[in-house]
């Protein structure tokens, strides 16, 4: 198991270095240089420009700049935002819990609906139930989620007035951040009104963000179940006279879950991409909205750092999924 883990970690390092290269290249490929951006509208004379370039180390050869950048990255220094003047890492860490909370709830929503729907479709294969589940999930998979968000806002917020349109919590509550997850922090503070407010705000964004993973999970569960149901040991379990419910839920689902777990893990990248759109629409103060805002404000250190941090998150989650996969499926671990 340790060897497996080390091999996986070894594969991670070149990928990480590649991502730093992309993030580094990004800032150097963008038209104009950072000093001009700092100067803004007022402009700057040539001597002052050269002075600042030297001060920021931007007059050195590119490879030297890259190595000092890498050195800083490994020390946790991702530069300072041009807008907030705060370290990029600090800005990111403040917003990150909001994105994690949203993504986790979206995934929870996707799993609680997707798994049973997939199982049901597989068990009732070829029936109306199956066709409905597959039709709905293909529609969900094809959904432009920014439009789906607008439709839900139109229905639940504008017409019915059930849910708020934007934000994380009503402005009348102030909750001291402990974990950064509002659902937990409000409960820690013992403020149930604030908890309900946070939950209300979370509902629509989580549904929107969970829609595509929901469709993927339902489809994957269905096909995995259909594979497993054909196996001999399932026929054996049936022949022993076990109840159909037990055969499906205990015997079949356990093995069907193996590919599903991988798919769920792979959805993390999809979730983060979806978070960019969802957070922008619902004014959710998370990493996705911050990245879009940073690009629009031309705050390149933030964009550079943000890309690196998001990519690292995806890599770490992929690693965890790989390890989990090896744990639940020994065939993978020993095959390599």
């Amino acid at each position, binding site marked *: 198991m340790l060897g497996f883990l080390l091999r996986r970690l070894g594969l991670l390092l070149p990928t990480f270095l590649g991502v730093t290269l992309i993030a580094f290249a990004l800032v150097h490929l963008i038209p104009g240089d950072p000093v001009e951006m700092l100067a803004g509208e007022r402009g700057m004379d040539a001597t002052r420009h050269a002075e600042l370039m030297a001060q920021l180390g931007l007059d050195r050869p590119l490879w030297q700049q890259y190595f000092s950048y890498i050195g800083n990255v490994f020390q946790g220094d991702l530069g300072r935002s041009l807008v907030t003047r705060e370290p990029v890492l600090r800005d990111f860490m403040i917003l990150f819990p909001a994105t994690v909370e949203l993504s986790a709830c979206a995934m929870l929503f996707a799993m609680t609906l997707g798994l049973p729907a997939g199982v049901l479709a597989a068990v009732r294969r070829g029936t109306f139930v199956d066709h409905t589940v597959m039709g709905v999930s*293909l529609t969900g998979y*094809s959904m*432009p989620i*920014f439009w789906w968000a607008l439709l839900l806002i139109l229905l639940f917020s504008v017409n019915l007035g059930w849910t708020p349109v934007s934000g994380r919590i009503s402005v009348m509550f102030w909750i001291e951040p402990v974990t950064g997850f509002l659902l937990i922090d409000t409960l820690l503070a013992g403020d149930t009104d604030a908890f309900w407010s946070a939950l209300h705000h979370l509902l629509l964004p989580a549904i929107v963000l969970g829609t595509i993973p929901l469709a993927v999970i339902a489809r994957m569960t269905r096909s995995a179940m259909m594979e497993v149901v054909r196996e001999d040991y399932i026929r054996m379990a049936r022949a022993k006279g076990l109840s159909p419910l037990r055969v499906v839920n205990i015997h079949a689902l356990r093995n069907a879950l193996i590919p599903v777990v991988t798919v769920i893990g792979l959805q993390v990248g999809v979730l983060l991409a979806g978070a960019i759109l969802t957070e*922008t629409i619902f004014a959710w103060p998370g990493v996705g909205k911050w990245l879009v805002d940073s690009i629009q404000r031309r705050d390149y250190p933030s964009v550079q750092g943000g890309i690196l941090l998001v*990519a690292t998150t995806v890599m770490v989650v992929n690693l965890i999924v790989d390890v989990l996969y090896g744990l639940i499926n020994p065939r993978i671990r020993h095959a390599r």
Partner: protein
Amino acid sequence: MSEPTVSAAPPVPPGPIAEFWQHFRVNHGAVLGLFVIVALIFIALFAPFLAPHSPAEQFRDALLQPPPWAGGDDWRFLLGTDDVGRDILSRLIYGARVSLLVGCMVVTLSLAVGVVLGLTAGYFGGITETLIMRLMDILLVLPSLLLAIAIVAILGPGLGNAMIAIAVVVLPHYVRLTRAAVIGERSRDYVIASRVAGAGMFRQMFVNILPNCMAPLIVQATLGFSSAILDAAALGFLGLGAQPPTPEWGTMLADARQFIQRAWWVVSFPGFAILITVLAFNLMGDGLRDALDPRLKR
């Protein structure tokens, strides 16, 4: 008792296209998808004849006019008008051109580059393969939309740059598929036989191996249309894709967002057009996969 006469000719096996169609038409969803796509291509080609108005013409006397069948009274605008009085139906019809163009360009670009890279990686192996595949791994760990946004940030917003960005983002899928298929074919007898016969490197790669790797690529290309259209609309919605006044569906939605409380029709129809188009390509892609992939053939 006379011998029953046996017809001399054995039944003719169906040609590859007929066989494909037999498998394809079983899937009603796929046929429906194909039908919608053909209709969309027709609409895109004949947009100037089908659209009642020009997509840019502003009717100053009819701002935010609801559709006539839903409370409006102006039968000139079947799906209503937007905030500057442009006919939504006409803009949707011209938008089909933009979306199909995006799909075509992105798929062509990513397929061409992806196939060459995948063939190279699979055929040569060794350090070439490692380099190409590691590069693809790097592209894969970046969430697709984020990478597309980053590329657009470098190149500047606009439809052309958005298409390049999306093509780069989807590239790894084509490279991986091609490489996997090439590795499967590389050691087949027919490849070795033609090498013995003196076939050159390019002939091996493009004439002998590639045609046998096409099935998964055709499926991926079809599904690639849907993701390209979806991503382009998302970029347009974020203001990074097609710029106004281009009648692009995502950009139309971005413009319409502020009127969500007053005018549901400006928000509903462009998104519906995106959904139908993407769904059609996904349905057809699923059907193609069933019909072309021999492992899944019944």
